[in-house]
């Protein structure tokens, strides 16, 4: 079986992975990016809104344009970067340090790398309700892929479940694409996402029903409607169920970090609610307890794309430095400064709480259990 060798393997070509690849390649390291999707850019290419945050992370630029910026940065050091799209890393075998990879559905090969940056992103969460398995119940990311990447109408009338940033943004994007949004239901007593996103969809007449949730989906072969209900302060259904006519139920109830490869590499993992799941312990260089593995982006904790890009840069910089490539002095501190600025808000405070649990100062002080 064919084996590809590289200095740095970056798993995932989204916001974090592309930033890591750009940074490491600029430092002189040979980088191989493996992306399971058909194209690079991850969630960035699905975002039509202008980003917040800071100018360093392209605030004021629309998400899909940021992907283009990162790709042109990589293009400027393309002699150091090898890109493999439609390529899934299926496992890591620590016995001999081999990754197994699959291109498409048929072609299998091995990859060996001196350092690996796991920027695998996240996967959609689902909540339980009867018929949640029927076609028409789609993850928010999937709806974005259909309409914003491929220009396909996801449905006629959508019920959005979740009023976090993703639920709000995707509701707005649906309306941009000419699709009706019946309502946004949110179990919590307040909107989880930014107020400005909520205001945009309220102005367009879409009700945001707080303390409401979906009770069941209706449909024989595919979704034809849903019942929603109010919740009391113990999140129990209260009062009558209301029928909502819809052919798509879009689930935007959060994401979980994708970390299987890190577990397989023996990295010390920790369940951190503030980071939305099981993540690898890491030091300030984004290095895990396995010194050849780094983590960045949503795989290291669910946060915004702006932070993912900075974490990617830190991981890329550190991996290159570990291989002996000269890196600019003080850059790590500069990147941490940017992260701190991005995390200065209310949502950031939660992230910082999570990081306090998971961040390691000295690996010698971490016990083995």
């Amino acid at each position: 079986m064919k084996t590809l060798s590289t200095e740095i393997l970056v798993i995932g070509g989204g916001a974090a992975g592309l930033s890591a690849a750009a940074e490491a390649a600029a430092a002189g390291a040979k980088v191989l990016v493996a992306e399971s999707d058909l194209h690079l850019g991850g969630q960035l290419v699905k975002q039509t809104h202008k980003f917040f945050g800071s100018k360093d992370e392209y605030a004021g630029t629309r998400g899909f344009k940021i992907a283009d910026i990162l790709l042109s940065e990589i293009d400027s050091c393309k002699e150091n970067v090898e890109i493999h799209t439609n390529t899934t890393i299926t496992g890591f075998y620590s016995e001999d340090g081999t990754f197994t990879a699959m291109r498409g559905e048929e072609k299998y090969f091995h990859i060996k790398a001196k350092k690996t940056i796991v920027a695998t992103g996240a996967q959609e969460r689902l909540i339980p309700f009867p018929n949640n398995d029927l076609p028409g119940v789609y993850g928010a990311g999937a709806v974005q892929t259909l309409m914003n990447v491929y220009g396909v109408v996801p449905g006629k009338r959508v019920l959005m479940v979740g009023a976090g940033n993703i639920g709000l943004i995707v509701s707005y994007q649906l309306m941009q694409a000419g699709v009706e949004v019946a309502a946004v239901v949110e179990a919590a007593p307040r909107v989880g996402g930014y107020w400005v996103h909520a205001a945009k969809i309220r102005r367009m007449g879409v009700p945001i029903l707080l303390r409401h949730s979906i009770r069941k989906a209706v449909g024989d072969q595919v979704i034809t409607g849903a019942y929603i209900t109010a919740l009391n302060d113990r999140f129990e259904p209260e009062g009558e169920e209301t029928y909502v006519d819809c052919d798509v139920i879009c689930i935007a109830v959060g994401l979980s970090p994708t970390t299987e490869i890190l577990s397989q590499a023996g990295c010390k993992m920790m369940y951190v609610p503030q980071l939305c799941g099981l993540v690898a312990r890491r030091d300030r260089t984004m290095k895990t307890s396995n010194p050849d593995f780094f983590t960045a982006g949503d795989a290291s904790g669910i946060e915004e794309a702006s932070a993912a890009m900075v974490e990617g840069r830190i991981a890329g910089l550190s991996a290159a430095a570990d291989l002996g490539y000269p890196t600019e002095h003080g850059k790590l501190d500069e990147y941490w400064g940017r992260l701190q600025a991005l995390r200065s808000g209310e949502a950031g405070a939660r992230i910082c709480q999570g990081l306090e649990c998971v961040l390691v100062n000295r690996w010698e002080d971490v016990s083995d259990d």
Partner: protein
Amino acid sequence: MLGRRKTGLDEKSNPGVDRGTMDLIEEHPILDFPRGEKVSFFFDGREMEGYEGEPIAVALHANGIRVYRETAEMHRPRGFFCAIGKCSSCFMVVDGIPNVRTCITPLKPGMKVETQHGKGCVPEAEE
């Protein structure tokens, strides 16, 4: 409701849109959609049109197809779900190969895409 079904998928499961039309976003305030060449492919023997290089699942969705497979035990319909090749909901039989992740497998002209019933059957290896 939930439970074992007596009958599996039928004609009504996938009415589709009218032949020659697709559920596409024609005008978008911000995005352009660079599409590949228009090609024809087959879904359960029905000829359909899609754009070369787009995921098979996306082409089917544009043709109004929602049910992609039927589960082995409960015979429940499955369709598009995660769109990132992780959830196994959109597994179909493509050119005779079962369990193809159609959400990240590019469409090619003349492809034969079939609804997958149960676990599917791996074809005998060619000599």
